[in-house]
């Protein structure tokens, strides 16, 4: 149980009433000249917070869009090298010359999605464990700061006729 502080006789004389009337009087004495609203400082802080949040969201969206574009480019590059690997599988053994780098005919979708990409096909001779040719297909494209990055890297082995596992 909460007890109100007892008023001394002099204070009671000054107030002339019970503690309840004292609380009422104190409430009445609240200053009325303070206007409710926002100060300039509060407004500046609110605008700063809002601006920071908006900038963060915009940056996040930009990063998400960039990541999505990169994933899409990788998908197109992987499809391209996988298709080229199938073409290589059908080529006769004599048509694949080792120790040289070359490129191949690119699809329209690849040229549209990755106009700046470069493609390389490296062929190396391998004798062990079976006679084969190691063919490496690489797709490189410059990133946003101009540095070349590997979007796809696929290695296939074509076995010599009669040496297929």
């Amino acid at each position, binding site marked *: 149980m909460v007890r109100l502080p007892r008023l001394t006789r002099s204070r009671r004389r000054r107030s002339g009433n019970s503690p309840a009337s004292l609380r009422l009087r104190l409430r009445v004495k609240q200053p*009325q*000249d303070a*206007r*409710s*609203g926002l100060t300039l400082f509060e407004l500046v802080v609110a605008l700063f917070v*809002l601006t920071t949040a*908006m900038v963060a*969201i915009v940056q996040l*969206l930009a990063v*998400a869009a960039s990541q*999505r574009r990169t994933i*899409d480019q*990788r*998908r197109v590059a*992987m*499809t391209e090298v*996988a*298709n080229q*690997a*199938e*073409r*290589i*599988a*059908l*080529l*006769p053994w004599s*048509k694949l010359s080792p120790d040289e780098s070359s490129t191949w005919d690119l*699809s329209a*979708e690849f040229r549209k999605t990755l106009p700046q990409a470069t493609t390389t096909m490296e062929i190396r001779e391998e004798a062990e464990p079976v006679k084969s040719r190691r063919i490496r297909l690489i797709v490189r494209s410059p990133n946003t700061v101009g540095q070349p*990055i*590997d*979007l*796809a*890297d*696929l*290695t*296939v*082995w*074509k*076995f010599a006729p009669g040496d*297929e*596992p």
Partner: protein
Amino acid sequence: MRHSRPAGKSLIEMLVMISILSIVLGLSATSLATLFRLRHTITRDTEQARSIERLAMRLRTDAHEADSAAVAEDCNLTLPSGRSIRYSYTAPRIVREVRGGEKIVHHDSFSLPRHTKVIFQSEQLGMGSLLRIIIEPETTKLPPRELPRAARIEAAVGIHGALATSRRQP
């Protein structure tokens, strides 16, 4: 005599507040609409990419094992075991049916987005034939972002393990 000013907001304050709120609400609504549209596009593209990847893997495995391929409106592969595999397009999916004689022993489907056109092709190349499935958007009046992605899957027929692959994640 002291006059106390009434507590509350002036008309200017109210107008400024309403303007700021309108701008904030407008930006939020636009951002949310963009995010929802982006989510829809990403989901559709991811599903299409996954479906095409699965289809490419299946088609290449089947084509490598096949003895021959016949392509018209659909694609029929004949396996050495006597079974045949048929790939056909029934919008909006590519259906793969494995038949043992007249009986369908396995059925598989690969979903594609709406407004997609699928073309089966075959080309004679080097020592054999190259099977090709072209997936491209139908010519419609839809905006470019609504159209499905184009893709081309190629598979060598009858190479029977003449090629080993190793894919490295760059």
